[in-house]
């Protein structure tokens, strides 16, 4: 039996070798840029100094993690990360499904394409540019909002929403939905395109209107895609789009807007605390793995076909 399998594999390789060859650059990419750097995680367990190097630095076990969890800045960053991620999950995830459902209801092909493109384009605008747009809108000095505000309430001071710690998380959520929801809806739009039209015809014969069709046909048909995306999204539960937060952040909003990634950036690159930032990054990855594996296990129990592995 084993001999047969070996022979079959050899035959497959011989037949498909161009395809195997084509995978090599991809494999090399992952090895070089994703697996080899994992060696650097050892810094999280060493008293690393940029001058002594990885090998010469003293091994300190979990002391760096102990120090990390005692830092007030990290506790704050962890709390903010979880809260912001939760907000984004509750808004961005359903928003992309909703967009896909609404796009599916548009009957004029040209208009549908126009709307879809308009929703996707913001994804390709960098966060720095988006911050520039926000600044032009919300700055109490030169922003459009200040002009409107002064016209409507000339006596009162124009609020600086960009420097309001109570508003910062909302700004993150709103700009995230504006920038990413349209792009994220592509997966669902593709899934919807694959639904058998006969299912809609049957529903119509049963008297279902557009809303009922969306609820009872479209959504169940794209359930597997939704669950897959959900599991993947939970894998990045502690990733809150570093570039977005860094671009929009300022000293006043640190209390509600400092996240693990910006904390790692500050401690690592600016303060040269590489061990500490590596430990924080490793912690984040460990949480991500736990979420992915845990969610997948739950999904597997409920609906084995929708699980990832």
């Amino acid at each position, binding site marked *: 039996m084993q001999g047969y399998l070996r022979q079959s594999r050899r035959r497959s390789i011989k037949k498909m070798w161009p395809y195997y060859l084509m995978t090599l650059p991809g494999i090399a990419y992952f090895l070089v840029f994703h697996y080899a750097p994992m060696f650097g995680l050892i810094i999280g367990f060493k008293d690393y100094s940029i*001058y002594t190097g990885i090998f010469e630095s003293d091994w300190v076990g979990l002391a760096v993690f102990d120090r990390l969890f005692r830092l007030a800045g990290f506790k704050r960053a962890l709390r903010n990360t979880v809260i912001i991620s939760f907000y984004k999950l509750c808004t961005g995830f359903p928003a992309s499904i909703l967009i896909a459902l609404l796009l599916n209801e548009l009957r004029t092909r040209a208009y549908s394409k126009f709307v879809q493109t308009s929703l996707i384009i913001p994804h390709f605008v960098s966060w720095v540019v988006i911050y520039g747009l926000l600044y032009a809108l919300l*700055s109490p000095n030169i922003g459009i909002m200040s002009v409107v505000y002064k016209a409507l309430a000339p006596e009162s001071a124009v609020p*600086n929403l960009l420097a309001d710690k109570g508003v910062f998380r909302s700004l993150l959520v709103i700009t995230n939905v504006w920038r990413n929801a349209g792009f994220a809806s592509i997966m669902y739009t593709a899934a919807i395109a694959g639904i058998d039209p006969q299912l809609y015809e049957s529903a119509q014969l049963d008297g279902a209107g557009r809303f009922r069709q969306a609820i009872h046909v479209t959504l169940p048909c794209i359930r597997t895609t939704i669950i897959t995306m959900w599991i993947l999204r939970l894998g990045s539960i502690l990733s809150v789009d570093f570039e977005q937060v860094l671009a929009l952040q300022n000293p006043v909003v640190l209390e509600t807007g400092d996240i693990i990634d910006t904390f790692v950036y500050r401690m690592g690159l600016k303060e*040269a605390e590489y061990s500490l930032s590596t430990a924080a990054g490793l912690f984040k990855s460990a949480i991500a793995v736990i979420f992915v594996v845990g969610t997948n296990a739950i999904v597997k129990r409920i609906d084995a076909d929708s699980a990832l592995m």
Partner: protein
Amino acid sequence: MKRLMTLLLALVMLLGMTSFAEDEARPVVTALIATSQLPAETNTILTELCERTGIDFRPTMVENTSYSQKYNTLAAAGTLPDIVAFSGYSQAMELIEHGVLLPLNDLLEEYGQEIIANHGSLLYDNLAVVDGKVYGLINGGGRYNMLMVRQDWLDALGLDVPTTTDEFLEVLRAFTFDDPDGDGEADTLGYAATMQFMATMTCVLSAYGVPYGRPVQADGQVVPYFMHPNYLQAIEFFRTMYQEGLMEPDFITIPNMSCLEKLWNGTYGFYYGDPIGTTNNWFPGRYTEDPKPVMTYTTIENEEGVGCVVKPVYENFIGITSSCKNPEAAMQLLNYITSVEGNQLTYAGIEGVHWAWKEEGSGIVYLDKYADSTAHRDDGGYMYWPCLRMGGMERQILTPVTQYGYALAEEHLLDDAYIFTRPEVDKDITFDSDAMLASLIVSEGDYEAEYKAFIDEYLTNGGSTWIEEATEIYAAEN
């Protein structure tokens, strides 16, 4: 003909090889330099510097805010350049302890006579000297930030130069609401401020005797500046300015360059910064008003008259790394830059091309397009350690008003409890005092209670230990 062509070709190749061989013969010196404006990669002044020294100087220029990031990355990769900058006693000790820096004594004796003559006793008596070994050369320093006030606006409004906090407030209101530029539009503001250049925020603190960034003595202990007994008074003044719209309303988010542009186009009446910029290097080129603004300096003191300017400390150095392949060439380069000729070149450029003396020793005038300091810096002006020479060109070309600013500053220095060594616990403290300052200024709640909460948070998360350690260090160092 064919022979002639072959001969010509051979000649060209030979010449090319000769020039290549010349380049090869030049020792290469690399460096990491921070600047506020990046120059063109190849520029006239850099080329001239290489020509005059016979050194192939290859600096990596980075924005000021990116320097530590770039430095740390290079150090971690083991690819530090030949010449690096460092700051403060703790960093100096760290570099020396890890053998990153070369002791410079022998190199100075052999190749650094200009440096020895110019730096004098300060060469051997500074933070970067250990057991008589010199590890760093003082680079600039001795600078003050001073409060510039628009004299022409004061004259237009019939006001005197303010010197107390009450007068300051009165003038701020007049500058903001009484149309000091006389254009009939509400387009002026009292005070320039941006969190991206914290110096602009420190004037008010200094007026209340709070030296920003420096430890101070309080109740027999050494505490951080934000625990100074007058700190809340300064915050109250800030809040008045903010709430009445007397200062830049966008101070938390406005980029530094935008703030400067507003200074240059005549929006602000007061600006706190180094006079070498405000009334010297930027004047008149960057100011866009016609006629040009008339400026003077003042110091603001509260009723206690406690002083107004944070004491300068020589804490910025440049050193040669132990990985440097040509330490002799690196020292020769630094020595040349310290010389009168080298200082003129790196500060102002090539005489006759970039600048000319008005009268020898009475200031210079930048020529043609180089009157625009952006074009000047793009061509390498003020880039390659222009202040390495003490009392160099910078001091020789000060305008009278800049000289007045510095003289006034020296009479109004603030007391502090400066410590050379960084407390051990400092690296575990993530408290951000700038964030606290900004939050208290814009707070709509009980700012005193918020301040207390901030301080409690600081003390609980390592601040108490910091105070104990800093007090011990201060006692040991004094």
